[in-house]
């Protein structure tokens, strides 16, 4: 076998569209996961014991089972309960639910890490409970939750490759299909690995930059 990357280069437009699908899945999965996860963490913190227990159980089930099994359940099990989903929406929903479970835990830890004295002080100064959450708790949380959030974003990008198994036309599915058609499977998988590697490295760098900016911002205001 001769290693010939030129074969792959001819298929650049297709690879580009696979990359777009992966990036969209990834970004929507992060945005949806952050939004739902934040709501879940907030409801768990302020919503009473039974709600906390119920949501906590769901989160633990999602965190304790493989993403692939969750996706299979949604994709193959969905039609039996009237939920017919095409691969892409199914992937989007699956990735969002999965990431929401993990983001909710990050936000939960974030809530727990803000010293209660700060919130009490805010309330003593006459801020309402909602104001104290919005103006004190959330800004303080931002710095605490940023590093694990970036970490999770990286994990989600890598998990999105799993969606190729239910035929979502994302990067892994596209590039490995090209590899089989062209009899250049090894080249294709190498390329695939490099693309993911580059995105992950860039994300990590961006995360550290954001962390740096945010901590400077905080000290400037203090």
């Amino acid at each position, binding site marked *: 076998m001769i290693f010939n990357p030129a074969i792959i280069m001819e298929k650049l437009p297709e690879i580009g569209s696979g990359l777009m699908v992966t990036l969209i899945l990834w970004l929507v999965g992060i945005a949806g996961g952050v939004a739902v996860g934040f709501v879940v963490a907030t409801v768990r913190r302020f919503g009473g014991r039974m709600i906390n227990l119920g949501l906590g159980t769901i989160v633990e089930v999602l965190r304790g089972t493989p993403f*692939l*099994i969750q996706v*299979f359940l949604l994709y193959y*099990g969905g039609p039996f309960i009237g939920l017919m989903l095409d691969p892409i929406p199914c992937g989007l929903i699956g990735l969002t639910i999965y990431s929401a479970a993990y983001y909710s835990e990050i936000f939960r830890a974030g809530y727990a890490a803000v010293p209660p004295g700060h919130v009490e002080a805010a309330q003593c100064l006459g801020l309402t409970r909602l104001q104290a959450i919005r103006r004190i708790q959330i800004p303080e949380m931002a710095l605490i939750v940023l590093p694990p959030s970036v970490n999770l974003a990286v994990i989600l990008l890598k998990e999105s*490759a799993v969606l190729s198994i239910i035929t979502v036309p994302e990067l892994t599915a596209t590039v490995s299909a090209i590899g089989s058609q062209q009899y250049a499977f*090894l080249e294709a*998988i190498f390329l695939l690995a490099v693309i993911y590697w580059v995105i992950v490295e860039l994300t990590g760098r961006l995360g550290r930059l954001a962390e740096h900016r945010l901590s400077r911002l905080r000290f400037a205001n203090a």
Partner: protein
Amino acid sequence: MTLKLFTLLLQAAVSTLGISLISIAIGFVIAIVLSAAILSHKPAYVFSARLFISFFRGVPLLVQLLLIYTLLPVIGINVPSIVAAIVGLSLCTAAYQAENLRGGFESVPPGLIEAAEVTGLNPQQTFFRIRVPIALRLTFPALINEAIMILKSSSLVSVVGIIEITKMAQDLASSTYLPIPIFASAALIYLVINSFVVLIGRFAERSLGGASA
């Protein structure tokens, strides 16, 4: 969903457990080498170890498995697919475990090492009696986390045709048209295994004396 189907899933769980445990053990050994390379502060060693860790943490496990699965025969190594799967999982977990171990070794309080030297322990004794036990204790919770990650990630080896819980569930679901009960049972089995690992971890941590020691 009959008892027979559930029994088949349970039998497949043995394979999931075996693959995961072997991979974690091999990964741990590779991780020791990697973290030693980084802690050696020799530029060439540090660079190679960092490159390895960055690659295996930066590429999806599914892609790593496909890569190893295609690469091994090309370079003339013909092994059963289960071996390729274990190699893939081991290399991936090694990268994560190496980072944990390095962190553990770096967080051993320098005062303790100085104290050991002052007490008259030689460098070897200091390493094996002071640094290693403390670093292992500090990294133990991370090791348990990693074990759970690998147990879940091992579901991906179904892609290269190895019969474990996920592959068995997939086959049963397509032959019985009962995807919901079958995948839900598979999820339950994973959940029970992972809960056990967490419990064992807590128990072991307590008998190790916790991170406070």
